[in-house]
């Protein structure tokens, strides 16, 4: 953990967000901030509203109340396209890869906002479109190297094992060179070795690419090791907010979630 970037001012501010689906309340008056370059974990029992919180941040859900400010711009409703343009990328709990495409193509879609050539130029594939395609191919190959998935780059993602698919999804998010990376249970369903690999990748992303990371995770060991600060949700409310050590000792958190100390 040497050479960590300096944690800066808040880059994301969630203010008093409330979200409900019909009669079901997902979030109630949640507020917290995320500082630049930090790794922030969101934890809580199942159904606490963690995924909903991520969905609100990148615009997939619209909260009934409250707002989210990213890089100083405050919004209540933003659509996912705008969020992507602003520099937010994410992964999903139930892998949201494009099954019909290869790993390489999936990662290339992550670069789409940076590609400017129009359809006619692409159809001709001479000069400008060609060099743009090759330029972004190089960037994507850097991500492929980083995640060590060269051997499957042409495989359709639907055929990959679960652990590799999760890595590819991370790759697609990284290909966008995001400022804020939202990871929804990146280690779900992984064994110990895969978790170690994924943890290493996440730390490296934070170190080398300087991305701010918000991650939802159930494995307490991972959360304590990786994160700088933690937010704890329970039944849609925030019940604790602080460093991993502070949160671990918080009696409300223990009641709601950790149960017996191990």
């Amino acid at each position: 953990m040497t050479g960590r970037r300096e944690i800066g001012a808040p880059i994301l501010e969630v203010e008093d967000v409330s979200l409900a689906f019909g009669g079901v309340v997902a979030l109630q008056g949640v507020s917290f901030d995320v500082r630049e370059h930090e790794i922030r974990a969101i934890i809580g029992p199942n159904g606490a509203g963690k995924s909903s919180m991520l969905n609100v941040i990148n615009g997939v859900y619209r909260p009934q109340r409250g707002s989210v400010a990213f890089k100083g711009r405050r919004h209540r409703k933003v659509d996912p396209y705008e969020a992507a343009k602003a520099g937010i990328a994410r992964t999903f709990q139930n892998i949201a890869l494009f099954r019909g495409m290869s790993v390489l193509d999936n990662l290339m879609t992550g670069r789409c906002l940076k590609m400017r050539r129009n359809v006619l130029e692409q159809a001709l594939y001479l000069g400008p479109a060609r060099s743009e395609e090759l330029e972004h191919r190089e960037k994507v190959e850097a991500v492929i190297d980083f995640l060590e998935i060269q051997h499957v780059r042409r495989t359709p993602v639907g055929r990959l094992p679960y652990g590799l698919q999760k890595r590819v999804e991370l790759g697609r998010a990284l290909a966008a060179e995001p400022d804020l990376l939202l990871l929804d249970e990146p280690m779900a369903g992984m064994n110990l070795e895969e978790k170690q690999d994924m943890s290493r990748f996440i730390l490296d992303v934070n170190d080398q690419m300087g991305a701010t990371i918000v991650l939802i995770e159930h494995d307490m060991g991972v959360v304590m090791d990786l994160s700088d600060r933690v937010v704890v949700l329970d039944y849609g409310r925030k019940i604790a907010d602080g460093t991993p050590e502070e949160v671990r000792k918080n009696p409300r958190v223990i009641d709601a979630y950790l149960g017996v100390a191990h």
Partner: protein
Amino acid sequence: MQFFFEVLIGGLLAGVMYSLVALGFVLIYKASGVFNFAQGSMVFFAALTTVGFVSMGAPLWAAAGLALAVMALLALATERVVLRPLVNQPQITLFMATIGLSFFIDGVAQLAWGANVRALDLGIADEPIDWLMDHTGLNISKFDLVASGIAAGLVTLLAVFFNRTRTGRALRAVADDHQAALAVGISLQRIWVIVWMTAGFVALVTGLLWGARNGVQFALTFLALKALPVLILGGFESITGAIVGGLIVGASEKLAEVYIGPHVGGGIESWFPYVLALAFLLVRPEGLFGERRIDRV
């Protein structure tokens, strides 16, 4: 004013026929989530088979009975050859498979019975009802009235079947949730065969009525297409919706043709129902009686 009523009632009665076709679709969609494009072909095949047996000398009731048996066999074959191999595929794949099925049935029907237009005589005259004509001046044919009566009877029969019998309950369970139905021991395959046989029966009734009206011809196949706007308006899963949707489509089609048609050269019946359906889809995609779906990410 009287003219308006005549057109309206004419449209409603035509709509009853559409409802019958839509009914077949709803049955299959309710139980298996498949939009059966081949329903129109089934109507054609059922009618043609009946007429074929009649022309071989069988009395009408026997011919219809034989045709029903043939439709049952068709249902069995369809479940085995089309539905089972495609069991987990997305809706759109199953829809395309039923397009293939419809072509297959059309080919077999014409191969077996020839491609000529056949007349079908059910013994009900297509004449105006004198009593009604004399008292109200309205021109409504006996045939239409009988057809409406049969449709009403069929709907009642199906409603009773769905709501009061064990099999009907199983059908509703399968329509709701395949996995849960399997979990309580309902055999999906058996249910599907039953549903397709029922749809075959509805197709036979529809085919006989339409065939008596318009002659048994290949164009019957394209009834499937007319059913689409009916289902969109009424909702894909609702029997009531099929009836109401059919009536609305029938009535609006005729009224549009009579009142808007002359201004644009006529013939708007060919596309008016689809544009109507399109408008509906944009405003209320689940139809008047359908269920709202909420997708979770």
